[in-house]
């Protein structure tokens, strides 16, 4: 990955480039050789939410001699689509951040090449969804309705527990969710309802949700930090909705990022509304540095990285031997039976469902 080092040179090149297309071509070539040519550089293409502790990454670089470049390419869905479009000549070596809701799109599109990491046997068997090892599971998270504890205490209403509860009159106009077409928690929530009510039943359920005053916004940030009354951001922004579609780990994040650590998290999780999300990494087809890419995948599956994951990305590790930080046990909620759906089925129905959902809920 190149950084802007000398602007004056660039302006000079720009002027030259403007004069003749030949110069332009030459310019492209030189850029190319500097960004992809050296085998000690390895590029991780990922989404905006990827995060790792600096020292953990440094340690990997020191141990292997690879220099890791990160190319954060928008939110998860867009990053996957862009990677698919450029798969013949990828922008990096490893892609991290494709989840089970988009997995089959990536696999069918030939985004990845097989690589079986030696760490595989340590990873939770239930998350190893690709028998050909084109992807390696890295973390899991549950998409669940979160509630604002204070609101429900003050109004002396019990917070909802299940999907069915959300359609009851005492929760009218309380829930905000994300656009299933553009947001991954939004899509996860839709898939959860489809898992719960079946292919035929979910539209009826959503009609009830709509009649019960559900609000839809474009993305998670807006839903959680603007509309939701229980989050720190939402309180500041004057959020008015005490129920939001977020993650099972969001209460942990609320507590960890509070100015003074609270005794309990200010928000809770409706455990009967959860959908399990699994995030994968894979070696990109046509990667320029496959050896470096493989080392990077081993690193993502390693104990060191797996133990670093929870407090950086607020998801759970997939390694059985990874120690979960104390904050997770103190403030978190264990979701025992999340809704799940096979990636093949998701692949089959996803687009049609999103389309019907759009017409049903948005239009």
């Amino acid at each position: 990955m190149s950084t802007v080092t000398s602007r004056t040179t660039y302006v000079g090149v720009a002027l030259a480039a403007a004069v003749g297309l030949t110069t332009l071509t030459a310019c492209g070539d030189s850029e190319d050789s500097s960004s992809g040519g050296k085998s000690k550089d390895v590029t991780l293409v990922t989404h905006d939410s990827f995060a790792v502790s600096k020292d953990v990454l440094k340690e990997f670089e020191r141990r292997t001699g690879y220099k890791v470049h990160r190319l954060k390419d928008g939110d998860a869905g867009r990053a996957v689509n862009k990677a698919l479009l450029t798969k013949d000549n990828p922008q990096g070596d490893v892609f991290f951040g494709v989840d089970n809701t988009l997995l089959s799109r990536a696999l069918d599109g030939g985004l990845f090449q097989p690589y079986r990491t030696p760490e595989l046997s340590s990873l939770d068997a239930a998350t190893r969804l690709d028998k050909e090892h084109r992807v390696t599971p890295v973390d899991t998270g549950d998409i669940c309705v979160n509630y604002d504890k204070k609101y429900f205490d003050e109004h002396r209403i019990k917070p909802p527990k299940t999907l069915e509860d959300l359609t009851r009159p005492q929760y009218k106009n309380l829930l905000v969710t994300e656009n299933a077409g553009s947001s991954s928690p939004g899509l996860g929530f839709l898939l959860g309802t489809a898992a719960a009510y079946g292919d035929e039943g979910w539209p009826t359920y959503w009609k009830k949700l709509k009649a019960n005053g559900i609000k839809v916004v474009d993305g998670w940030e807006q839903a959680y930090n603007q509309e939701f009354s229980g989050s720190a951001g939402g309180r500041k922004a004057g959020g008015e909705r005490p129920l939001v579609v977020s993650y099972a780990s969001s209460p942990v994040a609320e507590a960890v990022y509070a100015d003074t650590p609270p005794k309990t998290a200010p928000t809770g999780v409706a455990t009967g509304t959860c959908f399990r999300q699994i995030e994968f990494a894979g070696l990109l087809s046509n990667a320029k540095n496959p050896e470096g890419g493989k080392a990077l995948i081993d690193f993502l599956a390693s104990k060191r990285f797996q133990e670093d994951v929870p407090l950086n990305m607020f998801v759970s590790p997939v390694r059985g031997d990874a120690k979960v930080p104390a904050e997770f046990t103190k403030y978190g909620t264990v979701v025992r039976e999340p809704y799940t759906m096979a990636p093949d089925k998701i692949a089959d129905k996803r687009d049609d469902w999103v389309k019907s959902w759009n017409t049903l809920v948005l239009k």
Partner: protein
Amino acid sequence: MTAARKAARRLWPKGSAARLGLAAVPAAFFALFFAYPVTAIVLRGLREGGHWQFGRLGEVLGDPGIRHVLWFTTWQALASTALTLLVALPGAYVLARLDFPGKALLRALVTVPFVLPTVVAGSAFLALLGRGGLLDDLWGLRLDTTVWAILLAHVFFNYAVVVRTVGGLWAQLDPRQEEAARMLGASRLTAWRTVTLPALGPAVAAAALMVFLFTFTSFGVVTILGGPTYATLEVEIYRQTADVFDLPTAAVLSLIQFAAVALILLVHAWTVRRRESALHLVPPAATAHRPRGAAQWTLLAGVLLTVLVLLLLPLAVLVQRSFDTGGGPGLGYYRALTRNDDEVFLVPPVEAIGNSLTYALAATAIALVIGCLAAAALTRPGGAGRLLRGFDALLMLPLGVSAVTVGFGFLISLDEPPLDLRASWILVPLAQALVGVPFVVRTMLPVLRAIDPRLREAARVLGAAPHRVWREIDLPLAARALLVAAGFAFAVSLGEFGATVFIARPDNPTLPVAVARLLGRPGESNYGQAMALSTLLMLVCALSLLLLERVRPRGRDAADRPAVPTGEM
């Protein structure tokens, strides 16, 4: 064709060859960086799975969701255009016909929004109309996620288009014609309706079509203010490509938008040609006068109030927000811009200013070279006229073709040697230059056309080589217009968002991209930084525009044209 031109043709038999030669570079540029990428992405969508997907056309058009998008795109563009005309026509009159202190400043001010990035305008309106915005604080009124916010933002953007296009002509209409009608007994209204209105008609139509084009393809405003409920065709193309990954649908939608834009441009070209027909024009200085009577003073006050509320207030709120830190007014957000928040950008947001300026300079250089060659080709005497007129319209197309389509096209088509530009920073300036070229051509064309061909002819007769003729005759006359074109291309490149958001690399964000990314992140600090960065971007835009206004050609020479080329689009 004038006798002089005929003579020139006889004298210069290879005229058409030279013309085509000049046109070759811009044509190659557009083929390589516009036609090829756009075709590549559209074909990729239409040929999914190895065979043609023409059946998708009917399928897409039959989809009620898509029909809803088409319907919304059309009616909001119509409504935006009508509203813009309604609000801006009095402004056009006031700036054309009335003389008052600060008029030049006002003219510059109303043009600022036009070159502002849509993201900045979007955030300005959000700060005014959104949650916790000024209206919300005062009256609990929120207009974000309603169509009103979109319409008002469109008026904000396109006010200048009407003022410049219509006002530019209005200022040069001979007032004596209307006076004559009144002397013959017509009432003030009748005189205006029968004399001035018909003369202004084509200019109003041209402005309306331009506003329609810009609002029909609106992207940034709708994504920021519309929420998930409202989508224009352009936004839907983005969603189908980037979110749903339904390339066939995106391709069909791109073709529909392409057809619509081509139609708008054709109608526009036709109105402009009609407008160029015999009107008696006089210098603007001769038509403007101090306001007279209560009606004119009221009109002036009304226009000033509109500009204040609709154009300046959103910008002022933006600036105010950028200083409004948690602990009272201060520079906290500006200081935060210099910090390296690893998780957002990998570089301090303030570096985006440097990136933006570098990209905009490069884009301006490219746009100037391509645009000037194209304009020169279009004004050269010689054959191949019909062919070149088509070329003229072709150069305008990037204004209306989805920037996302262009961006995606770049990613998949310019990825192999000898043209592997994907990892190169030049990709962004190239995309921005595409939007800049139409402005350069529109600014240069009228000036070059107005140069008396007899001058060139005389020089040639005296034995000057073609490049010498150009240097000695055309260049001095066109130099001012060239500066104006450069300033405009620069401002437009600075604000380009749709294509840049797609191809800008995360470690090299431009200002608009950085603003959008900050707005998309939670927390007050990110919001405040977005406002601060928007303010900086606005300043840079406004400064380049004011500079441009200073070099604005004066007097009655050939270069006496509106500073903003929309008048000729």
